[in-house]
């Protein structure tokens, strides 16, 4: 028999309080990154050796700016989820683990904001 309350079973959440959310979001961002990465790789090949003016014009095209923002969002979300698991698996000391988990979360978010801001600044007229 289960010692969980009915409400607890319905919610499907364990002691971590978020159920399969981490696992699921890693898959959602992974699926998003398949077309985004292929688009980005092809775009970068075409942009090889591009001048500053050419690169700015490319980012300013609405489709490219939107795709870049989506790529940035999915990349840093996925990266944050992945690094979290690596730290949880390998860092034994509880103190170092908390510090590293917080640092990687803050760094991932800061990098995403920096990249997103750069895209918007260029797209809205540098």
């Amino acid at each position, binding site marked *: 028999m289960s010692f969980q309350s009915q409400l607890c079973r319905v919610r499907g959440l364990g002691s971590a309080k978020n159920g399969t959310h981490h696992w699921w979001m890693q898959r959602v961002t992974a699926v998003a990154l398949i077309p985004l990465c292929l688009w980005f790789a092809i775009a*970068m090949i075409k942009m090889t050796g591009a001048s500053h003016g050419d690169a700015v014009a490319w980012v300013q095209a609405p489709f490219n700016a939107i795709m870049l923002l989506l790529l940035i969002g999915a990349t840093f979300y996925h*990266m944050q989820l*992945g690094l979290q698991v690596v730290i949880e698996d390998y860092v034994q000391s509880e103190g170092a683990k908390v510090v590293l988990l917080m640092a990687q979360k803050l760094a991932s978010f800061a990098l995403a904001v920096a*990249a997103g801001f750069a895209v918007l600044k260029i797209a809205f007229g540098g």
Partner: protein
Amino acid sequence: MSTNERPLSPHLQIYRWQWTMAGSILHRATGVGLAVGTLLLVGWLLAMAEGPDRYAAYQGFIDHWFGRLLLFGWTWALFYHLCNGIRHLIWDTGSGLGLNVAAASGYAAAAASIILSVIAWVAAYSTMGAI
């Protein structure tokens, strides 16, 4: 009995090294490598936003052999993580988990990552007119 004296289950070094193990740890290693590699992407976008001078400085870094090495490593890591990630997504559906299939798809992912990297760099150099 203190925690440290408890018997441990057999760990990595006890097992014969297999391709699927190598592929698994490579997925993690390339993931961490790509996380560091995002600095190249952020640097590129910020340099572009700063203006032509910073952009030229950034291109100077990428044109240097060390920058090229980083970029080449990043290209392969991206394609490996992408191909092996698709393998993981297929496993999530419950298929492709048999020993032979898993080994074969592991080889396929590694081969595809190398082929895609070579294609990408040949295409990039020909864009520059270097080939």
